[in-house]
């Protein structure tokens, strides 16, 4: 691991000032915020990340979880994944979020991992993690080893000729379905970004994964008030029953009125270069009675434009069935 200086920021402003000296907040950043460390320390050991300065934000007062003024939920950036998953409000009113978090990683990792760290976790693409191989995300312009390599776990949606890395988060998929807002404090002040706009498609700059600029500190995430009567679930399909990343997953939430679907939200994980949501697919179900044919049609819309690689074509049908099954679960 490359040497670095360790700083414990006295307050968010000090952390932001320190991080704003980095030329980028994306791949290759010279300053990184350190929270749970479950992604960052791992990648520093691999030589994928090599910051000169680590700013410890664990003691900043950013770990609260509580009701927001509008009746929604306010989730601190350094709230631990375990605390969020087991929070009584989350379990009762945002069930898909609790289930999504508990379906990921292990208890030890969830006790360390934080809200913002989970949002910013990096792809598990083998080549991103292996500095001996070309990877456009890690080293722009070096090429993509995955397109002609081991790509079974990788993305079928949102890919480019430069990168097919899948986003590995479960939490972010549920947050996307719930219309989460990411709150950022930066050198120029505060702003908020809808989670749908927070993650960038790889295009020809796969090293840029989100909208964060140097010095930007995610301070918290908010969820809008829960929909009355909604039934929600997170369904994750994977190679092992526990402690494994998703092949495909679906976060769904549906409310019913007089036997018909009144509101429908869903997002897919494991298939996209970012958590994947298709509003037209959700809208296709509004006003319809629940049923296999309608669900199947919505799934087709959600998977429209999917581009299989040499080893992951199975994900298209698996994702369809995952979504249909999850929708069946919450409308029975």
């Amino acid at each position: 691991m490359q040497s670095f200086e360790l700083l414990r920021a006295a307050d968010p402003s000090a952390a932001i000032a320190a991080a704003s000296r980095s030329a980028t907040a994306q791949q290759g950043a010279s300053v990184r915020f350190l929270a749970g460390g479950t992604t960052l320390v791992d990648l520093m050991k691999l030589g994928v990340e090599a910051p000169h300065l680590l700013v410890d934000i664990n003691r900043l007062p950013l770990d609260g979880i509580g009701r927001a003024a509008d009746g929604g939920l306010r989730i601190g950036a350094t709230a631990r994944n375990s605390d969020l998953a087991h929070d009584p409000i989350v379990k009762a009113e945002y069930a898909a979020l609790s289930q999504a978090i508990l379906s990921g990683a292990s208890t030890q990792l969830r006790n360390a991992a934080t809200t913002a760290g989970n949002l910013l976790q990096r792809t598990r693409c083998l080549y991103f993690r292996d500095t001996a191989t070309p990877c456009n995300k890690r080293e722009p312009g070096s090429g993509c080893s995955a397109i002609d390599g081991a790509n079974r776990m990788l993305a079928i949606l949102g890919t480019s000729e430069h990168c097919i890395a899948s986003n590995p988060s479960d939490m972010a998929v549920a947050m996307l379905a719930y219309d989460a807002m990411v709150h950022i404090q930066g050198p120029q002040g505060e702003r908020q970004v809808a989670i749908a706009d927070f993650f960038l498609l790889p295009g020809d700059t796969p090293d840029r994964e989100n909208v964060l600029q140097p010095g930007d500190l995610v301070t918290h995430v908010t969820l809008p008030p829960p929909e009355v009567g909604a039934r929600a679930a997170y369904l994750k399909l994977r190679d092992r029953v526990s402690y494994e990343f998703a092949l495909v997953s679906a976060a769904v939430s549906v409310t019913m009125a007089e036997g018909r679907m009144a509101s429908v939200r869903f997002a897919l994980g494991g298939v996209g270069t970012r958590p994947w949501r298709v509003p037209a697919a959700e809208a296709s179900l509004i006003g319809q009675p629940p049923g296999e044919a309608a669900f199947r049609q919505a799934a087709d819309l959600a998977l429209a434009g999917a581009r299989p690689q040499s080893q992951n074509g199975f994900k298209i049908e698996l994702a369809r069935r995952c979504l249909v099954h999850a929708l069946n679960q919450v409308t029975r």
Partner: protein
Amino acid sequence: MSDPTSNPFSAVEPNSDLLSVVLRINGASHALQIDPRATLLDCLRDTLQLTGTKKGCDHGQCGACTVHINGRRRNACLALAAVHEGDEILTIEGVGTPDRLHPLQAAFVARDAYQCGYCTSGQIMSALALLQEPCGPGDDEVREYMSGNLCRCGAYANIVAAIQDVRGQS
């Protein structure tokens, strides 16, 4: 950058790469001079010779390095030691002794819940935490809660049985 003098991480001496930290481990304070890169795992094993905590994968994938930090189980390989100054750290050395085994340790012996034993301290630290966590009563729930601890000898069935013995579940 903020006033550097406000940084509570203090170098051993000017221009030194080493930091002076005091770690609380198994109820005792240890004043140490460590590299900022030192993980809690390496610090325990190589600086303090507390070698009961094992290094398996060193990447947060196997659970052999599980310790408790402020009462919660964590992977020591992904924790930078200096960051945990002031935290209460519990390792396997703080859980029972050869003469007075913790009930979990006795249950692992009684159930033969290991073969090579390399993962065992991590298994026991995870199981000890599980006793305080919202884990359901069934074997499947124990398996889920223990999935962050790999056992390449495959002693899983007996590990679950040992934990259930201590929990009083069948």
